[in-house]
């Protein structure tokens, strides 16, 4: 299946993309998608604890099973206002 990942702020800069599509094996969960990203850019590994991940517009858990066409948004600690 294909999952779109959108990244913001520091994570966007470290990953080198604003949005990118990834092919993941069927049955992959949110945590698996993160692991794929870390394999490409190990520098983001330490940021997992502070990063919220939204799936299709709602914040979600790492154990959530992904489906083809899902969009994951990587949300670092916020700084608005």
């Amino acid at each position, binding site marked *: 299946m294909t999952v779109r990942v*959108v990244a*913001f*702020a*520091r994570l*966007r800069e470290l990953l080198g993309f604003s949005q990118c599509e990834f092919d993941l094996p069927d049955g992959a969960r949110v945590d698996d998608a993160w692991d794929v990203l870390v394999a490409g850019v190990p520098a983001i590994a330490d940021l997992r604890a502070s990063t919220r991940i*939204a799936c299709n*517009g709602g914040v979600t858990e790492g154990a959530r099973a992904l489906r083809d066409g899902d969009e994951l*948004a990587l*949300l*670092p*600690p*916020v*700084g*608005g*206002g």
Partner: protein
Amino acid sequence: MNRFAVSEHPLDAAVLENLVCDDKCGGLVTFSGIVRARSDDGRDVSGLAYEAHVELAIAEFEQIAREAGERFGECAIAIHHRIGDLVVGETAVVVVVAAAHRAATFDACRFAIDALKERAPIWKREAFVDGTTEWRENRCTDEAPG
């Protein structure tokens, strides 16, 4: 004009005030967060860059307004946040609250800006006069601007 927006265009508090005020409105409180020339750690700022997950941020603004109504009673709220590159003196965020009485307007406005800074998926990169940049997280509950 929507009451809740994230936009690259300059913000205009007067436009938001007109969105929320009707003939039941006795008090109107407007908070504007403005880009300061000096950061919290004393460095000279040349400007800020904001980015946002626009869809989620607007949903969060709507949620914050609902919560403010539940906590402080009937009030009309508008929240606009700027994204893109801002220079010193420009407005990054405007929160406007109208209600019949002023206590609710102050309480709801303060609640809304505090909640926005804590939760809204918006990020800020400070650019300093010395040429460096830094992503700024809202660690405490009273960082400026906003």
